[in-house]
């Protein structure tokens, strides 16, 4: 992978490295040439790695004290909150950590959308990312069920019932998922098992995600390829390490604020009521990070079509590298795309908002329009935009606008078309 062959200095190091080139890998990771113009939106990859590790470590400790049984789960969580030393801290980090994880992943995804990071030659990185995102949603949903509160129970009931929309075998699948005829103890134990498994799958995929990234290298805010590595890039260590570290610390301050001062604000009060199959909560609402998809699900009157719409809303992202026909990566040089990008951001926020509201009246109408627009953006706007849009001149290299002294492109040579590929 490295441009130059690395040989360890010490004899032992060389002996070891010839047999398992771990030192070569370490050397590759520290020397990895990174575009020097990356902005702070690029620090979220590192932040996400931190989130994953945090969730795994706190999750392991919680699993030592948690009891996956319908009669004891709620009580064991209270045991963690009260009697386990710093159990409240571990649990609040884990619960808020999920929200922080999604906050970071949404920024990471929308950064990718803005700067066209999903485009050739980075399609595989993108698709692995989408799979990671799907697994994150699964892990988050399964984890939310474990405290066995009212929202846990009814959320599990609603989501597993979605599978009953599948023709012919739907009902059978739901019974199979539940391990019975309703959400009950067998459901809880299998959800716990899967919740424990998925983070390690994510970890494996993260390794692939980074591996795939290190083949073409990072995209960058200008969205053009590296011309001269010596001029356009900096070694990952120390430049990017310290910058990522700084951003991570800023992120941790926000994280700490939630954990220590408003630990329950992102959760639903009903989840502090123990699960009761006989009492349905007034509104069954998923966690905030799933609300846009929940809104899409509910905006379609037919159950099966609703499920299909919800799944397509995520899976359509995997096709994005081919739906976006523009050769220019960065939205900086795409005046029209930039506007549609912000409309999409607003659209998703609106979907999140109506997802938290009852599906009736005006909310339902807004949800339907927003859902329609969401698909329109990917299926119609993006493909057409690539052909119709007049893009602004793209600089010749990464260094050029930087050396020119201003990030806007006044000082940049005019070119009509982009021939970087």
């Amino acid at each position, binding site marked *: 992978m490295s441009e130059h062959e690395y040989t360890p200095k010490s004899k032992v190091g060389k002996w070891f490295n010839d047999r398992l080139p771990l030192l070569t890998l370490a050397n590759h990771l520290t020397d990895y040439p990174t575009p020097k*113009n990356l902005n702070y939106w690029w620090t979220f990859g590192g932040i996400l790695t931190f989130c994953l590790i945090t969730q795994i470590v706190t999750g392991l400790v919680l699993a030592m004290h948690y009891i996956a049984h319908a009669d004891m789960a709620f009580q064991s969580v209270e045991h963690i909150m009260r009697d386990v030393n710093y159990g*409240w801290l571990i649990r609040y980090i884990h619960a808020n950590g999920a929200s922080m994880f999604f906050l970071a992943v949404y920024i990471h995804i929308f950064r990718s959308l803005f700067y066209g990071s999903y485009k050739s030659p980075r399609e595989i990185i993108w698709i692995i990312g989408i799979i990671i995102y799907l697994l994150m949603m699964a892990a988050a949903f399964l984890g939310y069920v474990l405290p066995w509160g009212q929202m846990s129970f009814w959320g599990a009931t609603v989501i597993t019932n979605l599978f009953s929309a599948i023709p012919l075998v739907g009902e059978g699948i739901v019974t199979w998922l539940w391990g019975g005829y309703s959400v009950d103890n067998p459901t809880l134990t299998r959800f716990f098992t899967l919740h424990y498994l998925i983070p390690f799958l994510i970890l494996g995929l993260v390794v692939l995600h980074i591996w795939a990234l290190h083949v073409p290298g990072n995209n960058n805010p200008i969205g053009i390829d590296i011309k001269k590595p010596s001029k356009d890039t900096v070694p990952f260590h120390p430049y990017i390490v*310290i910058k990522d570290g700084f951003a991570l610390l800023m992120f941790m301050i926000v994280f700490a604020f939630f954990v*220590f001062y408003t630990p329950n604000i992102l959760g639903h009060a009903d989840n502090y009521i123990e699960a009761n199959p006989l009492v349905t909560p007034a509104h069954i609402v998923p966690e905030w990070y799933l609300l846009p998809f929940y809104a899409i699900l509910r905006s379609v009157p037919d159950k099966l079509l609703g499920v299909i719409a919800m799944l397509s809303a995520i899976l359509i992202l995997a096709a994005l590298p081919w739906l976006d026909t523009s050769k220019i990566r960065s939205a900086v040089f795409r005046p029209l795309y930039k506007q549609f990008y912000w409309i999409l951001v607003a659209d998703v*926020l609106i979907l999140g908002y109506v997802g938290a509201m009852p599906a009736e009246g005006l909310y339902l109408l807004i949800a339907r329009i927003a859902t329609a627009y969401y698909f329109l953006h990917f299926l119609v706007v993006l493909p057409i935009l690539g052909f119709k849009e007049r893009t602004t001149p793209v600089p010749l290299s990464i260094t050029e606008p*930087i050396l020119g002294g201003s990030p806007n492109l006044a000082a940049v040579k005019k070119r009509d078309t982009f021939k970087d590929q």
Partner: protein
Amino acid sequence: MKNFFRISFLIALFFGFQFNSNAAEKVEYLKTDWSFKGPFGKFDRAALQRGYQVYQEVCSSCHSMKYLSYRNLVEEGGPEFSVEQAKAIAASFEVKDGPNADGEMFMRPGRLSDKFVMPYENEKAAQAANGGAYPPDMTVLVKARGGGVDYIYSLLQGYEDPPAGVTLDEGVYYNKYMYGNKIKMSNQLSDGLVEYSDGTNASVQQMAKDVTTFLMWTAEPHLETRHKMGFKAIVYLIILTVLVYFSMKRIWSRIETKV
């Protein structure tokens, strides 16, 4: 740095959005100063002890407190009764224990290690005694209600005569803060209902505030530790962030690019 403000702004905006979406359809709750609110918030020890008294003399005849033990009453950050006081409190309850050597269950005075004694044997018994409504367990009650402490505080003072046109069934009462305004718990508090040992005037408002403070503590027994630790953690993080910021500036000054 400009980017950071932009990021923080977006985050704030996003969560602002969230809270708004949860804040719909709420009535205005009664407001009071809670000593435990804010980053340096602590429980008012005397209020917790009075609150325990209200719970004990009023609420506990119907509402259980099943995740709390008598030993918790002694612990730091709580009402901080003395060990003797807490032992006396525990001993005033009869706890079912056993089986003994003869295989029989027997009653004995409570100990610090015992959980709070439940008012009813089980949920069904509680329902049977309360006209079909189950008085919810109170340990995490303030966290289990959207309005939190303000809601509980208001609810306790929210009993009114029903407005014209609203008819109530037998055993149902009108409360302006209850979801749907109909509640199966009758008005429990009246001025002078309990006699506070510290001489505080036991007005309805005072009792509501004290017992709600107590319920906040039962729901979040480590709140004080959390606030203290949070302050230290955030100060530490800010100092570290500043140091790392200057290191970053220094490292990046080796090349001409701005960071």
